[in-house]
């Protein structure tokens, strides 16, 4: 093709773009991309025709750094993956190391992990509900959710001294036992939290505008959800009952009694409703944990210098966002030979281009919000 022809073609393409469709750059600086995600969206008026997500703005070589650190040193790095649910990152990583090194952790530590983990799930879902409300233009629910989330952070601050990046779990249990009276505080928090769900419902679930905004939007069919390896509320919203806490129990989840809420049609509403009910299930789990928790040590006796035997392990937990997996290959030294994180949001985000076409711009924001992405985890 000659240069002139090429230029002509470009002019034609450009003309076509300005007359009918246009590419809009959404992000990386956009209030609703939840961080530094860049979406290239082809718009036909208000209707989204095509979407290309670009990620990697937050890439910081998490896995490569991990290969140059000892097993214990990696724990603080895992905090920075999904900063809204740091405890789960700790947990998934420590669980892998414990399985690799065949360490049995004490009973009390198991219970505390579950109590802390489920509190973390509540905090994470609260943030999600709040920011999702922001995406839909409801500012008040954001503040209300943050009020309760603050209380969870206060509880975590009491146990770990940190509010976001806890580094609280250790290979073999927990760093410390919880302070005196902490379990009573958790009980008091749950008593405060339970009536709050009805308040959130008044602002969101019961509001007709809210319902109409998200029902039937951004449908992810069950077969698509499986073929894109979606997990967590994304998968359950599409009507597939799959929860690692029940289907591949880790820790002592098999002793707990809880329901797994699922959606029916796989739209944004189902994902919203699944998360909203999961918070109540988490409350149930924490209550059972508080009831049954035994006294005792929280850290198993482990060697000062941890060496893993040659082998590999894939450990996964059900984080608030889906299946969070840590894959470790050990070569017998103090450092992992290969370290890989399966980030649930990265996998879930890849289903976005399937859900978006045909949506309006306003829906695009809602659909993106319903995935519950954390860019730190997506990019790693």
């Amino acid at each position, binding site marked *: 093709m000659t240069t002139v022809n090429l230029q002509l073609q470009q002019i034609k393409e450009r003309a076509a773009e300005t007359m009918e469709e246009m590419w809009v750059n959404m992000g990386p600086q956009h209030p609703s991309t939840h961080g530094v995600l860049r979406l290239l969206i082809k718009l036909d008026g208000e209707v989204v025709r095509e979407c290309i997500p670009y990620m990697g703005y937050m890439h910081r070589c998490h896995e490569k750094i991990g290969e140059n650190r000892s097993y214990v040193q990696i724990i603080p790095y895992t905090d920075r993956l999904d900063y809204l649910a740091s405890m789960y990152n700790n947990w998934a990583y420590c669980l892998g190391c414990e399985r690799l090194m065949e360490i049995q952790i004490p009973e009390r530590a198991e219970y505390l992990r579950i109590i802390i983990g489920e509190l973390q799930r509540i905090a994470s879902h609260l943030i999600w509900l709040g920011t999702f409300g922001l995406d839909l*233009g409801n500012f008040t629910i954001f503040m209300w959710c943050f009020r309760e989330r603050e209380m969870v952070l206060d509880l975590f601050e009491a146990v770990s001294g940190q509010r976001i990046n806890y580094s609280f779990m250790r290979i073999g249990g927990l760093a410390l036992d919880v302070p005196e009276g902490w379990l009573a505080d958790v009980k008091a928090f749950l008593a405060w939290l339970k009536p709050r769900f009805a308040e959130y419902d008044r602002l969101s679930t019961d509001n007709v505008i809210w319902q109409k905004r998200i029902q039937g939007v951004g449908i992810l069919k069950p077969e698509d959800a499986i073929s894109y390896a979606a997990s967590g509320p994304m998968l359950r919203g599409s009507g597939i009952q799959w929860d690692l806490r029940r289907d591949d129990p880790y820790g002592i989840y098999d002793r707990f009694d809880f329901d797994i809420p699922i959606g029916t049609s796989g739209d944004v509403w189902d994902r919203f409703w699944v998360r909203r009910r999961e918070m109540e299930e988490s409350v149930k789990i924490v209550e059972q944990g508080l009831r049954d928790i035994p006294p005792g040590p929280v850290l198993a006796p482990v060697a000062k210098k941890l060496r893993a035997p040659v082998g590999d392990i894939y450990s996964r937990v059900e984080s608030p966002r889906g299946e969070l997996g840590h894959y470790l290959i050990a070569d017998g030294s103090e450092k992992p030979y290969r370290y890989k994180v399966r980030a649930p949001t990265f996998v879930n985000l890849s289903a976005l281009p399937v859900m978006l076409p045909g949506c309006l711009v306003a829906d695009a924001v809602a659909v993106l919000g319903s995935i519950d992405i954390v860019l730190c985890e997506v990019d790693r």
Partner: protein
Amino acid sequence: MIGGVLESLYGLFGEWWIIPRLIEMFVVVSIIIGFISVAAMFLIWWERKISAHIQVRFGPMRVGGWHGWAQSIADGIKLLLKEDIIPARADRPIFILAPMVVFASALAAYVVIPFGPGLIVQDLNIGILYIIAISSLAVLGIIMAGWSSNNKYAALGALRSAAQAVSYEIPLIISLLGPLLIVGSLSMTKIVEAQYVPFILVQPLAFLIYFTCAVAETNRLPFDIPEAESELVAGFHVEYSGMRFAIFFMAEYANMFVVCAIATTVFLGGWKGPLLPPVAWFLIKTFFLLFVMMWLRWTLTRTRVDQLMNVAWKVLLPLAFVNLGITGLVMLLYPVG
């Protein structure tokens, strides 16, 4: 130079009274602008306090001491002193003109608002028609802003705004026709004087339609899709900063006051009320409606473009016609007086 201008005006009108008339106009316009600025600043502060209390916060607490009352003034000064940025590839004249058009349309509407008996700048015999006509001009300014910014988000916001304004103006006008039929006059003063009981009791449906449309007219949540922060960043004024942005902001609050003042005049009996002076009653009623608007904004979720249009054309417009028809029928069957 001023003398020359006056001389030419002299020559134009050939009347000596043009000078006191000019001075009077100048004073009146200054008063209006002063009132709008103070009212807008108060409303901004008030909205921040209301939203804060709805959201279990305090809102501004520091500037000026008591509950941060001087916050809006401080913000205004800050915006005045900010660098005036015009994007390199913007359409400069239109970009500069747009906020003025929006503000001017809000300003002009104040001419016929009856704050009290006789407290009206000009009691035009077409008062309400004038307000509707003038306030429709604001959408021109918004389209100008969106187009001249040379930004896709701004353009989308401007287009949404145009669609919304066109859709909502029609049910708004038709809902006002019911009370106007009863009054038989377009003059704002006459409308107030005709209300022995507030028209909201006679025309509740019209009031609801009017108020819904008014919220949409002023681009407020749940109908704030032209500036939808989480979708279009800020919509048509995304490229504006400093004082130009402040003018858009003030025009929004000035417009809110206008639509609520119309609602007070037409539906709530205007300045009428016992004990307190008329102006106080007028302001109390208007500010109560403003409070309701803020309350809605901080409670509801944003609607979507298609839903917004559906509500306007499929719900509000037929209802407004039904209301108008019933009013006409009743007037025909039971003629007043």
